């Protein structure tokens, strides 16, 4: 049996300076955790690995179920004619809300992100996130600013776009939201839109002639 007055060096270090060793371990752990967190955490991130959804196929992007059928570029939609220099990109599809409470137009806009450039918000400013300028009920041409639970609409997603920026094909990312309490006011709502699927569509080209707007 070893002489108790001369313990082995390793055991001795821990025994003689327990606080220092403990502190060193703690600091190491903190540094590792901090570095991992600062670099984005351990969750897998692969933005290009979005599930590809075919046109006409329904996809889930909580709280919505979305179906996009076809896309066309046009000068006229739901009785509105585009201003000079502008046109519309219109997507026909379906939108259902699978949630317990109504959502507003912002949540709808965050869920649908097109890769179109030079599009506009409903207020006329530049659209930065690819959200549609407006959502229109296909059946009657009225605008849908948000929707209520359990309702399914055939919709037209309309992007107001510079005529010169109309593409021949487009891709729409569907983003899902998380239901959680807000950090500041603790009110529960749909936050953190994050892409889950993407749909590629051909865009039917603009007609040759711009329709003549009836003088008022």
């Amino acid at each position, binding site marked *: 049996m070893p002489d108790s007055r001369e313990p082995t060096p390793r055991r001795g270090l821990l025994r003689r300076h327990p606080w220092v060793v403990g502190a060193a371990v703690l600091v190491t752990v903190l540094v590792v955790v901090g570095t991992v967190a600062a670099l984005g955490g351990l969750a897998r991130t692969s933005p290009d690995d979005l599930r590809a959804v075919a046109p006409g196929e329904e996809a889930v992007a909580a709280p919505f179920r979305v179906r996009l059928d076809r896309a066309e570029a046009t000068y006229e939609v739901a009785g509105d004619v585009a201003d000079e220099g502008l046109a519309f990109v219109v997507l026909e599809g379906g939108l259902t809300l699978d949630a317990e409470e*109504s959502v507003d137009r912002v949540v709808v806009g965050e869920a649908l992100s097109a890769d179109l450039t030079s599009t506009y918000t409903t207020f006329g400013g530049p659209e930065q996130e690819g959200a549609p300028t407006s959502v229109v009920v296909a059946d*009657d041409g009225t605008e849908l600013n*948000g929707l209520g639970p359990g*309702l399914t609409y055939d919709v037209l997603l309309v992007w107001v776009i510079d005529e010169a920026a109309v593409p021949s094909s487009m891709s729409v990312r569907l983003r899902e939201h998380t239901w959680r309490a807000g950090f500041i006011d603790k009110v529960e709502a749909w936050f953190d839109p994050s892409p889950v699927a993407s749909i590629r569509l051909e865009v039917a080209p603009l007609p040759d002639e711009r329709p003549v707007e009836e003088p008022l």
Partner: protein
Amino acid sequence: MNGRRRHQLGVGLVGLVLLGLATLLDGRLPDEDADPGADAFLRTAAVGDRVDLRTMDVRVDAVRTTSALVRFGVEMRSPGVWVVVEYTVVATDENTSVAYAELRAGDRVWSLDGRSSNDCSAGPPGVQVGCVAYFEVPRDAVPDLRVWLARDVVELRYDAVADIDLGLTAADAERGGNAPPLEVPDTWLGERP
């Protein structure tokens, strides 16, 4: 068993019982963000009842269902059912109106997002004001619908809220699907036109 052992066992037993009780209790306490003291004061009523909401009285006068609603000459066709609620407001001491209106069925809530809308002007105290709120809901929600009406759309905490059973049935949902387009009724001041 000697006295000391028994004492230790007794302490352990009491500790376990207390832990158990504490766990049970903890499950029933509101979480740290809940504010039950600030809950709205719900006043439950039926169509035709006058409901006292402190700063005003409200009364739901009529409820109608339809699949197509006409407003400002524009027809809105719903994939579900339009529910049109006509109600009367009488302010108590100051000009007041109903700015908050929602339909509820079970846990689901239909607010004024989408094409739903509430039209209610603030009338002077003692004067009847006719208001209209209309919502589109899925057909299956119609039989259980209740309407919540209150003064302020931003803050419901501590405020009085009318919780009124609309008394609709599945038959109303069906009938609504076959009805001709309904014009949104006008609001009115003083007396119903």
